[in-house]
């Protein structure tokens, strides 16, 4: 045996569950997972790595779409495999019978519980929807394909 410099895999998973606070953190109301939401953004918007929180600027609008988006189904806790921590929402993101006439190509996943702080932005080919449905199906929740991975 020998010592090996590494970021502990357990830490990677625990970051996703908010176990560690290496800086000033927030007082949490309980031990449950936060409520996450997903909002769609116009192709003309500029969501990305610099996004810090959900905002209405650049968000899609149209019939049957509620500003702020939808609540993310989160029934599967973050976990680890190999040396990767990962997490994936446990259901697709779905909008039903919406009309989104202006092209959109991104979804922002954000933390509704923690002042709408941003988590991730995912892009896809530009879409419009006319009196129809739009869904984003999640990748397989494993260390290779999960939506969020810390490798």
């Amino acid at each position, binding site marked *: 045996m020998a010592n090996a*410099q*590494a*970021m502990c895999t357990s830490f*990677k998973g625990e970051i996703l569950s908010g176990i560690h606070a290496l800086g000033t953190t927030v007082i949490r109301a309980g031990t449950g997972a936060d409520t996450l939401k997903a909002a769609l953004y116009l192709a003309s918007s500029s969501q990305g790595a610099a996004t810090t929180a959900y905002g209405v600027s650049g968000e899609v609008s149209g019939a049957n779409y509620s500003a702020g988006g939808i609540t993310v189904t989160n029934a599967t806790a973050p976990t680890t495999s190999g040396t990767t921590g*990962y997490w994936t929402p446990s259901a697709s993101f779905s909008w039903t019978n919406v009309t989104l006439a202006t092209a959109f190509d991104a979804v922002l996943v954000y933390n509704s519980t923690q002042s709408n702080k941003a988590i*991730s932005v*995912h*892009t*896809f*080919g530009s*879409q*419009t*929807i*006319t*009196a*129809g*449905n*739009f*869904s*984003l*199906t*999640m*990748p397989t929740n494993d260390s*290779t*394909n*999960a*939506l*969020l*991975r*810390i*490798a």
Partner: protein
Amino acid sequence: MDDSLLIKKEGAFEDNNENTIWIEYYLDNQLVHRSAHVRLKRPMVSLTEVGGFNG
């Protein structure tokens, strides 16, 4: 509405990032329905690194 009057168009797109299908219905050359379903393929990855003391 008489469904036989509707013209249906379908399409698909796939790259490293997504696998998408869409369906459209037209009535008198007017788009009256469009749905799309995107399967995300590319995960969001953050690579980690730790610093050492020996150089």
